[in-house]
C-alpha cells in the first residue's frame, strides 16, 4: 500500500472511531425526549431521569467528540483537496451540523448550573438539536461522497445545496440516525440500572427493527455504487449484526447487543469508504473528474511526518481513553444522582 492509501484507511479509522463513540452520545441525546420523561410507575422526577441519561456519557463525551476534530485535521493534513472540496461543497449541511454541535456542548455543560425548569428545558432543546441533527446529517454527507457530487475537471464543486438532497443521501441520513439511536439505547442498557435500563432495552427493541430494514436497503443501494464483490460480504456482516441487535435486545443480552451495534456501525463505515476506494469523492459529471486518493493526497514528506506522529500518539490516546472508560465503568441509576447544586437564576437577597 502506498502512503496515501494508508492515510485513506487512517481517515476511515478516525471517522469509524467518531461514529462508534459519538454514535452512542448522539443516541443518548436522542433518547432524552422519550426516556427522559417522568413516569407514574417510577414516580421519579423527569429531570432526575434526564440527568441520569446525560451522566452516562458525562465524563467521556467531550473526548469522543475530539475524534471528529482529529478526523477533520487528519483529512486536512493528508488530503487537503478532499477536505477543501468536501467541506466547501457541503457548506450549509456542515453549518447545520456545527450549530447542533455548538448548542450541544454548551447545553450539556451549562444545564446543571442553574436550577430552573425553563433553563433546563432550553438546555434539553440544545442537546436534542445537537444529537438529532448531526446523527442525520453525517449520514447524508458521507452518502453524498459515495453517490458523487458535480465536480468540474479541476475537482471543484459546481452544484448547489439541493444537489445534496437525493433520495439515496437522505436514506443514508436515516440509516445513521436509526443506527446511532439504537446504539445509544443499547449503550444505556449497559450504563444504567433500574427502570431506565429496562425502558432503554424496551426502546432498543423497537428501534432495532427499522434499523435492520433501512440498513439493508441503504447497504444494497451502496453496493450498486461500489461495484466491488467483497463489499457484499461487509454488507452481509452489517445486516447480520443488526439482526443480532434485534434478537439480543429481545433476549435482554446487553453486551451482545452493544457488540452488534458496534459491528453494524463499523461495517457501515467500511461499506462507505470501501465503495469509494480508490476515489475520495465521486464525480456525477463524468468519472474522469473523480477526485482520487492519489490526486487528493499531500506530498510524500508530509504523509511520512504524519505517519510517525500517528504511530507514536494513537496508542497513547487509545490507552488513556480506554482507561477513562474503565474508571467510569459503573452503572448509574436515578438513585446515584445527587441533588441539584445549580444556583437560582437571580440573586436572592436575604
Amino acid at each position, binding site marked *: 500500500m502506498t502512503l496515501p492509501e494508508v492515510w485513506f484507511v487512517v481517515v476511515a479509522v478516525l471517522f469509524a472511531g467518531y461514529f462508534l463513540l459519538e454514535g452512542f452520545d448522539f443516541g443518548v441525546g436522542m433518547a432524552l425526549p422519550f426516556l427522559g420523561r417522568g413516569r407514574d410507575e417510577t414516580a421519579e422526577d423527569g429531570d432526575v431521569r434526564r440527568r441520569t441519561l446525560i*451522566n452516562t456519557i*458525562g465524563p467521556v463525551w467531550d*473526548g469522543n467528540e475530539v475524534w471528529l476534530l*482529529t478526523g*477533520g485535521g487528519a483529512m486536512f493534513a493528508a488530503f487537503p483537496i478532499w477536505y*477543501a472540496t468536501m*467541506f466547501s461543497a457541503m457548506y450549509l449541511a456542515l453549518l447545520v451540523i456545527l450549530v447542533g454541535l455548538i448548542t450541544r456542548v454548551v447545553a450539556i455543560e451549562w444545564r*446543571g448550573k*442553574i436550577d430552573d425548569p425553563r433553563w433546563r428545558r432550553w438546555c434539553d432543546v440544545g442537546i436534542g438539536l445537537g444529537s438529532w441533527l448531526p446523527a442525520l446529517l453525517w449520514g447524508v454527507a458521507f452518502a453524498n461522497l459515495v453517490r458523487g457530487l458535480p465536480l468540474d475537471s479541476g475537482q471543484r464543486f459546481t452544484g448547489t445545496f439541493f444537489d445534496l438532497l437525493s433520495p439515496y443521501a437522505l436514506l443514508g441520513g436515516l440509516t445513521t440516525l436509526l443506527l446511532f439511536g439504537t446504539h445509544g439505547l443499547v449503550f444505556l442498557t449497559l450504563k444504567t440500572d433500574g427502570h431506565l435500563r429496562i425502558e432503554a432495552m424496551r426502546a432498543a427493541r423497537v428501534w432495532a427493527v427499522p434499523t435492520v430494514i433501512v440498513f439493508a436497503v441503504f447497504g444494497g443501494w451502496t453496493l450498486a455504487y461500489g461495484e466491488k464483490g467483497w463489499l457484499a460480504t461487509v454488507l452481509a456482516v452489517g445486516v447480520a449484526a443488526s439482526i443480532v441487535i434485534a434478537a439480543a435486545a429481545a433476549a435482554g443480552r446487553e453486551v451482545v447487543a452493544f457488540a452488534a451495534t458496534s459491528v453494524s456501525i463499523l461495517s457501515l463505515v467500511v461499506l462507505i469508504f470501501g465503495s469509494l476506494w480508490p476515489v475520495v469523492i465521486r464525480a456525477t459529471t463524468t468519472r474522469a473528474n473523480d477526485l482520487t486518493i492519489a490526486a487528493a493526497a499531500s*506530498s510524500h514528506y508530509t504523509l511520512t511526518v504524519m505517519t510517525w506522529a500517528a504511530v507514536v500518539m494513537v496508542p497513547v490516546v487509545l490507552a488513556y481513553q480506554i482507561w477513562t472508560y474503565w474508571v467510569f465503568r459503573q452503572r448509574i441509576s436515578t438513585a446515584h444522582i445527587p441533588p441539584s447544586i445549580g444556583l437560582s437564576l437571580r440573586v436572592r437577597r436575604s
Partner: protein
Amino acid sequence: MNALDVSRWQFGITTVYHFLLVPLTIGLAPMIAVMQTVWHVTGNEQWYRATKFFGKLFLINFALGVATGIVQEFQFGMAWSEYSRYVGDVFGAPLALEGLVAFFLESTFLGLWIFGWQRLPARVHLACIWLVAIGVNASAFFIIAANSWMQHPVGARFNPDTQRAELVDFWAVMTNNTALAAFPHTVAGAFLTAGTFVAGIGTWWMIRDRRRARVTDDVVLAGELNTEARTLYRPVTRFAMWVMLASGVALAVTGDAQAKLMFEQQPMKMASAESLCHVETGASFSILTIGTQNNCDSITRVIELPNLTSFLATNDVNATLSGVTDLQQQYQQRFGPGNYRPNLFVTYWAFRAMIGWAIGSAVLAAAGLWFTRRGRVPDQRWLGWLALAAIPTPFLANSSGWVFTEMGRQPWMVAPNPTGDPSIHLTVAQGVSNQSVWTVMISLTTFTLLYGALAVVWFILVRRYTVHGPLAHDSSPHPDRGRDDGDDTDADRPAPLSFAY
C-alpha cells in the same frame, strides 16, 4: 459586499469570539492546577475552596471555548477552500497534531478531573488538571505555529506541478522564529488575562467580606468574614497578582522581540502600525495622531517620542525605516499591480489599544500588591471597583493584539517571506471559496446571532457564580475522597456521584 468580504467578516467574528474565551482557559488551567497543588501539599482547605470556586468558572468558560473552537476546524475548508488546497500540505499537519496531541489530552483529562473528585486517588486527580493545563498550552503552540507559517512561511517549497506549497522541513515549521516569538507572547497574554480575572474577583470579594464584617452586628459572622478575607481571598489575590506581574514582564520582552522580527519579516505591517508613510531615519514612535489614517499623508502627529520606533525595530535609534508608500511601490514591482496596504486606521489603533488596555492589569497589580503588603487586608471601596473594572481590560488587549496581527497581514493570507521561497504567497482574494454571497451571509448571520446569544448566557453564568462566591457544599473535601472503588455492595442505597451534570 461580495463573498470575500463576508467570509473575512465571518472568520474575524468567529475567531475574535473564540479568542475572548481561549486566553482565560489557557491561563486559568495552570493557575487552578497550582491552587489544587498547594492544597494537596499543605492540606490548607482554603486552597481547596479556591480550586473549586475558580474551577466552576473555568468550566463555564471552557464549554463555550470548545463550542466556538469546533467551527474553526472546518471553516478553512468551508469558506477558504482555495487557501486549503494551496497550503493544506503544510498547514494541515499542525492542525492534525493539535487534535492528536492536545485536544484529546485536555478533553479526556478534563472529564476525569470534573467527575473524578472521589473516584480517583488524590495524586492521580491532581495529575489530571496538570495534564489539562499542559494540553491547553500545547494546543496553543500548534495553532500558533500554523498561524505563524501564514505570517512567515518557512520549511516549504512551491511545487509548480500541483500549484501548491509543499512541506519540506517540518522541524522548520515548528521552530519558525515567528512562532517562537508569538507563542510566549500569546501565552503571557493568556496568563495576564487569567491573573487579572482571579485577582479582580479575589480583590472584590476580599473587600466585600471586610466591609460586610464592619457593618454587621453579629460578632461571630464578622470574625468569619474577616478570616475568609485574610486566609482565602488575600493569598489567592496575591498569587494572581504575582502571575500578572510575571506575565506583564514577559509580555513586554516577547512583544519587543516580536516587533523586531516583524520589522524584518513584515515591514508593511509595522509601518502601518506606526502610520509611517515615508522613509524616515531615526523614526519616532507616535502616541497620538489625528486625521484619516487610510489617506497616509493627511494625518497630523500630535504626540510622539523621538527615535523610539527605530530603536524598537533595530536597537539603533538612528536606523532608517521604510514607510507605507515606499513599501507599496516595492511590492508592486515584485508582485505586480495591486494594493498591498493593510487598513492603516485599524492597524494603527489596534496596536495602541493592545498596549493601552494592558495598563488596566498593571494598575490593578500595582494597587493590589501595595494595599495587601505585609499582611494588610484592604477594605477600600474604590479598590473593589477598580478590581472589577480591570477584569475586561486584558480580554480587550488580547483581541486588539490579534486584530492587529491578522489585519496587518492583509491583503496576504500567506505573506511572502523576504528570505524564503519567493513563490509562496497567497492573497485573501485567491484563498476564498467560490460560494455565493448569500450562502456565506446565512452562516455569518447564524454564527453571529448564536455566538451573541451564548456570550450573553456565558456572562450571566460567570457573573452569577462570581457574585454567589464559593459554594457551601464545596467548603471542604468529601471524607471518602479517593476511596471510592466503584462498587456499592456494602450500601443499601448507592452513594451519590460526587458530581453530576
